[in-house]
């Protein structure tokens, strides 16, 4: 499919210095923007970059993932705005690449196509009862409190006393914090109003975070754990075996893991709870087997199997035992990471759920030939792993590969003909950055009335119709 048509034509250094390369970036999350930024830093090449975004609005998980009570993390948006304001950068929202326009078409029109479309689907536990009423994936739950249009009517069941969250990553910690935090902690953030209304009626007393492995395999980061210790009305506890064994390893391990483990262990014998506190309990060594429902099909409990954690605590043996526990709960959130989706026309390895690549250069198959001009970056490349800093690094590495390849020669692409013309012919209602800024202004105004930085729109149609 990608063969032959795009011949590499070595161009002399002089003309290369003057020429401007056309780049299509698929996805407007951090990977899309930071890869663009890295390319634009190049002193020897000029680029014109089109950033395609499936959603009508930009910034990916910075808008729709990062927790509302972490506004500082979203400060990176001002860098993204600066990038989008450059005369040689265009934001084309509401364009689903692979559907509205194919990657093959983009490769015909752009010298470089960067796949930075993130990891758009939830991992599944694959156990009975998953998906029952009252069981939500982390993208549904996070999307709900962060105003993702398709999840805004999720209305999760937080009326019961017990919530179980499966997974020991930062997303699980975010979900637990939003459920348990005192309302004043949330009300002045950009959390969706429908979420605040639901949280006002919450009956939750206990949130159990369930991990299948041990304390030293905890995936969350220290700042996120410490936050629980600073929230009023929240009591953090840690439930694990092998505490003494883990303590004995501490002096030998690197500082980050040591400090995190230290903090977790400190909460293995927390002070007594005050009756009004919401309990956050991080439980180690439990594998979910089944989610049970009542006769109406609503979540009633989660059945767990105890694992024996033994051997080297840094990489322990995890042995299933016969011991099971049925934990009553009316809400289960599965927060076990995300999967990269295959885009039509893009090579994909279903075994590893990833785009075959080598140093960001997309390959036809694992270990196979390169697809000239096609690159990948961010979560689309590495899976749902890493914070913004990781994504920035990834973007720099992707840009580095692109720049190296341009030194070696440039693919020839079709002259003229703007991709927007094709999209218009196909009836795609593109959203420009200017249109996004109108939405942005409106959201800020709506927020100001409530003393919030913004109130996210959960339907953009009205603004988009004013053309």
């Amino acid at each position, binding site marked *: 499919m990608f063969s032959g048509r795009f011949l590499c034509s070595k161009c002399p250094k002089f003309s290369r210095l003057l020429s401007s390369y056309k780049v299509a970036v698929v996805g407007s999350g951090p990977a899309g923007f930071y890869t663009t930024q890295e390319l634009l830093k190049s002193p020897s090449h000029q680029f014109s970059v089109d950033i395609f975004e499936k959603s009508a609005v930009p910034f990916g998980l910075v808008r729709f993932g990062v927790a509302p009570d972490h506004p500082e993390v979203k*400060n990176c948006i*001002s*860098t993204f705005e600066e990038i989008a304001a450059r005369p040689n950068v265009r934001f084309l929202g509401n364009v689903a690449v692979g559907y509205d326009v194919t990657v093959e078409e983009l490769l015909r029109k752009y010298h470089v196509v960067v796949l930075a479309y993130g990891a758009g689907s939830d991992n599944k536990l694959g156990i009975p009862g998953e998906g029952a009423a009252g069981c939500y994936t982390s993208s549904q739950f996070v999307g709900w409190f962060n105003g993702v249009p398709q999840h805004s009517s999720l209305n999760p069941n937080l009326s019961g006393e017990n919530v179980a969250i499966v997974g020991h990553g930062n997303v699980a910690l975010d979900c637990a914090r939003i459920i348990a935090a005192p309302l004043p902690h949330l009300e002045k953030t950009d959390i969706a109003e429908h979420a605040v209304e639901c949280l006002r009626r919450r009956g939750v007393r206990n949130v159990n975070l369930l991990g299948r492995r041990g304390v030293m395999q905890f995936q969350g*980061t220290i700042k996120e754990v410490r936050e629980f210790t600073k929230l009023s009305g929240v009591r953090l506890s840690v439930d694990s075996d092998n505490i003494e064994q883990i303590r004995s390893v501490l002096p030998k391990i690197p*500082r980050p893991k040591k400090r995190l483990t230290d903090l977790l262990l400190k909460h293995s014998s927390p002070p007594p709870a005050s009756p009004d506190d919401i309990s956050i309990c991080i439980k180690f060594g439990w594998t979910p087997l089944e989610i049970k429902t009542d006769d109406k099909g609503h979540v009633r409990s989660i059945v767990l199997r105890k694992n024996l954690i033994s051997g080297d605590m840094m990489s322990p043996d995890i042995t299933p035992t016969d011991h099971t526990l049925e934990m009553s709960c009316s809400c289960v959130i599965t927060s076990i990471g995300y999967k990269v989706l295959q885009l039509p026309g893009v090579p994909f390895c279903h075994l590893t759920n990833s785009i075959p690549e080598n*140093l960001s250069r997309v390959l036809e198959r694992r270990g196979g030939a390169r697809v000239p001009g096609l690159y990948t970056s961010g979560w689309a490349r590495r899976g749902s792993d890493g914070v913004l*800093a990781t994504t*920035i*690094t990834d973007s720099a590495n992707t840009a580095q590969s692109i720049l190296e390849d341009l030194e070696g020669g440039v693919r020839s692409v079709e002259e003229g003909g703007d991709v927007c013309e094709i999209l218009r012919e196909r009836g795609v209602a593109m959203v420009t950055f200017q249109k996004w800024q109108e939405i942005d202004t409106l959201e800020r105004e709506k927020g100001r009335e409530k003393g919030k930085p913004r109130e996210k729109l959960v339907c953009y149609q009205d603004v988009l119709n004013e053309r």
Partner: protein
Amino acid sequence: MSTGLLTATLRNYMRCLPLLKPSHCSRVVHCSSLVAPTRSRTTLFAPFKTVPSESSNHFQSMKRCLSDNSEKKTVKVQFIDRDGDSFIVDAKIGENLMKVAHQHDIDLEGACEGTLSCCTCHLVVHPDWYDQLGSEPCEDELDMLDMAYGLTDTSRLGCQVVVRENFEGLVVRIPPYEPQYT
């Protein structure tokens, strides 16, 4: 810092400089040679690294002409970037090191804009200098640093280190990006 520890840290610091040629390394270590820079990319490139933006030296000097009295004192600080290029810049006393880098177009991120919510302004301070910064990282800074790639015993977040009068000759390094593995 005890001498033994210092030597260990120094060795660690040197090990983290894979991109530096030996000549660079010695220049970095003997930071007293700062005032008389050796023949290096520093002297070649630093003066040209200005763009007509608000942050440029040009703008700064214009501003200085306009409001000379309000202008704070500066000290010379050396940044070594990811490529091993080094830049000696005038750092305003009272400004944090991340801002200083940005003002001189040195390629240091700062994604959360100095709010202690990322670790993208990670700097490795020259071991000789670490104890002279006049501040220790607070718990929140350590928490963020723990997420940084290439963490060392003398790592700091650039946005948390405020330039002081005694910083004349300070050397800091921007750690290289984590390489991609295949």
